[in-house]
């Protein structure tokens, strides 16, 4: 398992160095103008208050939340790679509530939208939890299936019952103003969801570190067999809770995306947040507080990549290579450390 407690800052420093080098090398080898690409990357992500707030931090919000979802699950030994599907059903449920309860005032409607997202995401993850605890189905496989089913569900909703009234475009109509998360000022696209994401991470960090439930979660993830043998922990119950919390957080991310950014539901509402989330969580060494930092880093990367494609003609998909490089480097460093410290592979 990845997720010890050795200096996360140092790992992050390694990873960032690697990121800069590998991107430069790849782009240079592919014949692109590396210098102007980097200038565009920085300008697009942190070159101005607008780029930082409305680009990077808006993009970081779903990454922080889905990253948190993955981190909590992995900490408990649950390989939830279904954050993508949980995000989608959360977005769908949030949109459904926003559209159907449109007469409610904002003070009631916004919490209802977010709660619907949490519940839908948790319910989606619960299926995988039952399959694992009752039927010993690997959650890796079941969550992949559930991701597809969620995508088709959204596709059905936006072409069926939730389609906008003119029935032309495969999307819902725009949600009412009362269902939209407030923004931090008129000149920015940054919305309250970012604050919620930060609060969720800090809350999870505190709970995992200082509460009995957090202790049980860590023990179940570190060594389920020992935890079961010791008889102090009901591992199945802890596992199920980890699924529910993880799914709920990913579902919340979906509802926040609808309520804070897109204002509507459509098919490709997630450009793979649930998968990038795995990189976000691993780079944070599964520490919920560090997820804030790594989520913003990846948000900056993705926001900057759009500018890079626009200004320097560099395909934004190059970000995927950087993400892959980070994960693989972390895996390698982790294994080297473990081998040198214990002499055996666990």
């Amino acid at each position, binding site marked *: 398992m990845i997720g010890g407690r050795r200096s996360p800052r140092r790992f992050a420093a390694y990873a960032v160095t690697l990121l800069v080098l590998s991107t430069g090398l790849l782009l240079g080898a592919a014949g692109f103008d590396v210098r102007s690409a980097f200038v565009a990357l920085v300008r697009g992500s942190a070159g101005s208050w607008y780029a930082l707030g409305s680009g990077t931090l808006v993009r970081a919000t779903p990454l922080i939340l889905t990253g948190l979802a993955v981190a909590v699950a992995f900490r408990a030994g649950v390989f939830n790679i279904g954050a993508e599907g949980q995000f989608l059903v959360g977005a769908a449920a949030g949109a459904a509530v926003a559209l159907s309860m449109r007469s409610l005032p904002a003070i009631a409607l916004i919490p209802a939208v977010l709660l619907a997202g949490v519940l839908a995401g948790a319910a989606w993850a619960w299926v995988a939890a039952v399959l694992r605890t009752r*039927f010993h189905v690997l959650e*890796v496989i079941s969550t*992949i299936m559930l991701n597809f*089913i969620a995508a088709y569900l959204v596709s059905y909703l936006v072409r069926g019952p939730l389609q906008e009234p003119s029935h032309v475009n495969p999307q819902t109509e725009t949600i009412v103003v009362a269902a939209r998360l407030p923004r931090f000022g008129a000149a920015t696209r940054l919305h309250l969801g970012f604050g919620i994401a930060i609060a969720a991470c800090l809350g999870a960090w505190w709970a995992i570190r200082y509460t009995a439930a957090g202790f049980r979660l860590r023990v179940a993830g570190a060594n389920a067999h020992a935890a079961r043998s010791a008889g102090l922990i009901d591992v199945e119950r802890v596992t199920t809770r980890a699924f529910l919390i993880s799914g709920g957080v990913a579902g919340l991310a979906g509802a926040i995306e609808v309520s804070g950014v897109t204002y509507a539901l459509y098919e490709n509402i997630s450009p793979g947040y649930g998968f990038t989330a*795995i990189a976000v969580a691993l780079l944070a060494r599964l520490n919920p507080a560090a997820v804030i930092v790594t989520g913003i880093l990846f948000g900056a990367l993705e926001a900057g990549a759009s500018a890079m494609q626009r200004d320097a003609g560099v*395909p934004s*998909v190059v970000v995927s290579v950087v993400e892959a490089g980070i994960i693989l480097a972390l895996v*390698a460093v982790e294994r080297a450390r473990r081998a040198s410290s214990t002499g055996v592979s666990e």
Partner: protein
Amino acid sequence: MSAAANAFLEATVRTATPLALAAMGELVVERAGVINISLEGVIAAGAFGALVGATHAGVAGGFFVAMLFGVALALVFALFTIWLRADQIITGTAVTLLAVGLTGTLYRALYGAAGAALSIRTIGSLRIPGLSALPLIGPGFFDQPATTYAVYILVPVMWWWMYRTHAGLAVRAVGESPAAAEAAGIRVDRVRLLALLFGGAMGGLAGGTLVLAQAGTFAEGMSAGRGFIAIAIVVLGRWHPGGVALAALVFGGASALQFLLQALGLALPYQLFLALPYLLTLAALAGVAGRVRAPAALARADDTYGT
């Protein structure tokens, strides 16, 4: 009606072909106790390899480079999971991202930023005399590109290899209990490496099929989830070659059905049929359709062999 049925069968078999090819490779990988979720990336790399090979060395070169790229990517996965004993899920996620990023970037670098619509000659279909005249199934099953016939040949060969040869037994032993297999003198790491390379070649071939036998062009993201679908097919096929082929047909049929429904003008939500194979897979896993058991050592990086 007959024309519609023929078109439906033809589309079913055509859609099932790359899925079956990739799933046959993944089947061997999983029977060896490894789950390679970067299969999605392997197919993407294969499709890109087919483009590169075909533009320089024709169709045969296309298939060769497609398999080569698939093997190369599988090698990266093997390096981390076998040599470093890294977690298979984490590594698989990273390798998929790597493949998506590399193919996207290199495609733009080699073939222009706009990604001009490149047209590649496809291998065309090969009508089998006699068999293609069979009523009902003839045109659908026996008037297809050569890669489809490769699947027909592969199913019995794989069954024989897996259950009637020492090599097949070794693979299954490694997937059930690596420690016991090792005690019996089987070199676990080598078996897993070879299984992964085979899986890479088959995934690459699946990607090559998409480009060289079907689309006749390359597009970013043209693997479109087929790697994950192939993993589902292995599960629904209960980790048996024949089951995998049937499961591939189920998935192929489900996506062909949406065109049939649209052609017939039925108002049923086609997404239901697309989602159905996944629901079936979950149900099969949960034991609704009898006992299904995964290889015991599947996806476990922490096996205590070779220490």
